[in-house]
C-alpha cells in the first residue's frame, strides 16, 4: 500500500507547493494557535479572568499536581481513552464494512446511525438522564422484568459507575461519526482489487484481512490518534449529564477547567490545566509517532 507518496519520491524544492499548504496553516495559526499561546502565559498568574493578573511563577502547576481533583480528572480521561479507542472503533469498522455492501437500505441505516451525532448534547443528555433516573426509565423497566439488581442501580448516582454511564451515552452519540469516516475510507478501496482477488479464489475473510484492512489502514490509524486527542478534551456529555458529579467522580480535565474558569473565578489555574491538557495530548501523539516508526508504517 505504498502507492501515494513513496512511489516516486522527488525531493525538489518547488515553492509553488507551499502555496497549497500555507493558507490553511496561516488561517489556523492566526485564529487558533496564536491566541491559545496566551493561556501558557496566563498559567503563571493568579488571575480571575478580568482583573489584573498577579505573577505567581509555577504556583498553579505546583498546586495542580497536589490537587486530588486534578489527579481524579486525569485518571478519568485515561479511562475515557481506553473506552473510546476500543468500542466505537470496533463498532464503527464492523458496521461500516457490513453496510458498505448494502444497496437499498444503506442510506437509511447510515442516517439512523449518524443521527445521534447531529442532536445537541443538551437535548439528548436530558432524555438520557431521564432514562437513567432511579424511579422511571430503564430502572423501572428492569424492575418490571424482575432484574432487581439492575433495577436498583444508580447509574448516575453511584460514583463507581457514573463515568461508564456517561461514556455509554457518549459512545451512543459518537460511533456513528466513526462509521461514516470508515465508510469514506472503504469507498476508496479500488474495486478491481477485490475482483482480481476473487478470481484467484480468495474467501471473504481473506478479502477483508488482505485487501480491506491494508487499504483503510491510514484512516484507521488517523482515527485512533484523533480519538486519543479528543478524549483528552472531552466535555459535552459529561457536563450536560453530571457536571462532573457526584462529588467529582465523573470529572475530566475539561470540566475542571470549566468550573475553575467560570464559576470559581480562577482563570489562571484553569489555563494551567489547559496547558497540561494540550501537552498530554501532544506527548501521546509523539509517543505514537515513535512507535509507528518502529512498527506499523503508514
Amino acid at each position, binding site marked *: 500500500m505504498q502507492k501515494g507518496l513513496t512511489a516516486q519520491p522527488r525531493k525538489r524544492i518547488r515553492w509553488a507547493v507551499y502555496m497549497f499548504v500555507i493558507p490553511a496553516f496561516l488561517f489556523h495559526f492566526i485564529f487558533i494557535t496564536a491566541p491559545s499561546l496566551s493561556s501558557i502565559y496566563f498559567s503563571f498568574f493568579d488571575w*480571575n*479572568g*478580568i*482583573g*489584573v493578573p498577579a505573577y505567581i511563577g509555577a504556583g498553579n502547576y505546583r498546586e495542580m499536581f497536589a490537587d486530588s481533583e486534578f489527579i481524579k480528572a486525569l485518571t478519568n480521561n485515561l479511562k475515557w481513552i481506553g473506552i473510546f479507542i476500543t468500542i466505537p472503533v470496533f463498532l464503527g469498522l464492523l458496521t461500516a464494512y457490513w453496510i458498505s455492501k448494502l444497496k437499498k437500505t444503506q442510506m437509511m441505516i447510515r442516517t439512523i446511525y449518524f443521527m445521534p451525532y447531529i442532536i445537541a448534547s443538551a437535548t439528548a443528555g*436530558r432524555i438520557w*438522564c*431521564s432514562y*437513567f*433516573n*432511579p*424511579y422511571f426509565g430503564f430502572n423501572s423497566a428492569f424492575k418490571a422484568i424482575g432484574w432487581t439488581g439492575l433495577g436498583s442501580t*444508580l*447509574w*448516575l*448516582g*453511584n*460514583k463507581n459507575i457514573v463515568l461508564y454511564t456517561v461514556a455509554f451515552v457518549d459512545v451512543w452519540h459518537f460511533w456513528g461519526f466513526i462509521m461514516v469516516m470508515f465508510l469514506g475510507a472503504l469507498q476508496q478501496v479500488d474495486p478491481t482489487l477485490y475482483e482480481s482477488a476473487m478470481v484467484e479464489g480468495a474467501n471473504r475473510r481473506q478479502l477483508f484481512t488482505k485487501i480491506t484492512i491494508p487499504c483503510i489502514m491510514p484512516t484507521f490509524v488517523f482515527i485512533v490518534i484523533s480519538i486519543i486527542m479528543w478524549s483528552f478534551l472531552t466535555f459535552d456529555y459529561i457536563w*450536560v*449529564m*453530571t*457536571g462532573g*458529579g*457526584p*462529588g*467529582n467522580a465523573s470529572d475530566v480535565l475539561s470540566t475542571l477547567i470549566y*468550573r475553575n474558569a*467560570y*464559576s*470559581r*473565578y480562577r*482563570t489562571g489555574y484553569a489555563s494551567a490545566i489547559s496547558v497540561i491538557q494540550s501537552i498530554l495530548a501532544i506527548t501521546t501523539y509523539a509517543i505514537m509517532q515513535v512507535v509507528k516508526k518502529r512498527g506499523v508504517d503508514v
Partner: protein
Amino acid sequence: MKKLTALFLTMVMVMTILPMMAFAGEEQRQIVISWMDDRTGEDGQYLRDEFVIKPFLEKHPNVTIDWQPTQDITKQVKIALGAGQGPDLMSIDGPSDALELYESGRTIGLNEAVEKYGWDKVIYDWALDVATDKNGVITGVPAQYEGMLFYGNKEIMDAHGWKMPTTYEELKTLATEIREAGFVAPMILGTSTIPRRNEWWYSTLFGNYAGREATKDLLEGRKTFFDPEIKGVFTTYKEMFDLGINGNQDTFAVTLADGRAMYYSGMTVLVMEGDWFVDNGVQNGVDQYVTLPPSFREGVPQSYALSVGGCYVVNKAVEDDPEKLELIYELLDILYSRPDLYVASLEAGGQVNCIDVDQALIDNANLLEPVKEKLKITDAAMEAGNVGHCTWTFFPQDVRIYMYEKADEYLIGDLSLEDYLQAMQDMLDKDIAEGKVPPVM
C-alpha cells in the same frame, strides 16, 4: 462537472444577495445601549419589553437598545469583558459577582446614581448593603430577591391528613409516614448536573438550625465552623441524607427537571424550592401548600433564607460617555421609580424586586391567589426579622462554592466532617482578614 460548477456559482450569488436583503433597511443609529440580560425566555423578554424598554423608548426615541438575552450570564459576562469592552449594562447573578467585577476594575461604582435618583429610599437596606464593598462603594443595584420555602402537594397531603412540618421532628415523622404510604421518597433534591442545589439546603439550615445570630457570628469571625451551632448544620444535613428524607443517594442520579417531574406527578410529596416555585406549581396545575422551612433546633424560629437574586452593573467604559451613562441610569430608574409598572410586571408573572412599594398597591394588584399567599408569608417573616442568609449572597465565594461542590463527597463519606469544616474555616479566616466577607444583615 459543468452542472456542478453552475450550481455552485448560483449558490454563491444567492448567498451574497441574501444577507444584503436581510440587513437592508437598518437606520442610522444615534446612541446604542447594549444590555446583556439574564432573562432568556419569552416571558422574560415580554416583561423587559413591556415594563422597561418600551416606557424608556417613549421618552428617548433616539436611543436604540441592543438587548442581549444571554444564558449562563456569569460566564458570558466574564468572557465578553475579558475579550474587550463588553456590554454597557449587565444584569448579573448577584452582589457577589458585582463585587468581583468592580474589584477587577470592569464596572463603576453607582453611589452617585443611587443618591441622585433616590434608589436608596426604595431598595431594602440589607440588599443595598450586600452590594456595597468595604469602602462604601455600591457595586451593583440589587434586582429581585428570593428565598427558600417548603412546598407540599395539597391534594396528596389532604388525602392522607398530613400537615406541613414546622419542626425537624415533625419532618422526620412525616417522612416516615410518606415512605410507609408507598411514595418513593418524601422529597427529592436532585443534585445531578447541579451540585449547587446543595446550597439551598445549607442556606435553610443556616437560618433554621444555626440561626441568624450564629451565622452572623460565623461570618464576622466570632464563631467558627466547629462551634456546635454551625457544625450542627452539617451533621443535620448528613443525618437527613442518611434518613433518606431527601431521597438518599438517589438524589445524585436525579436531575433538577426530573426531581420536579416526580413532585408534579405525585411520586414525591414535598419539595424545597425558592420563591419562583409558586409559579411553577400554578403552571403545572399542582395545588400546593407553601410554608417557611421547618425549625431544625429548639429556640430557632422558622425563617426565610433571603438572597439577592440579581444585580445591575454598568460597564467601566461607559464612564467616558456621560450622556450615555445618564441614559442608562434613566433606564434603570424605571425599575425603581415606577411602582405602577412594577406592580403591573408582578401581575404579568414577574419576580419580586428588592424594593419597598406601597402595600395598598400590592394588595389591590390582580395577583394569583398562591402568589398573594406566598407574599403574605414572606412579608411576615421579613417584618418579624425571621430571615436567614442564603449562602450565595452572604458567604464569601470560595467558602460557598467549596461548601456545595464538596457536599456530595461529604454525604457519601469520602470527605470527613473534620476536613470539610477545616477547609472552609481556613478559607473563611483568610477572607475575613482580606475583608472579602459581604456585610451581613
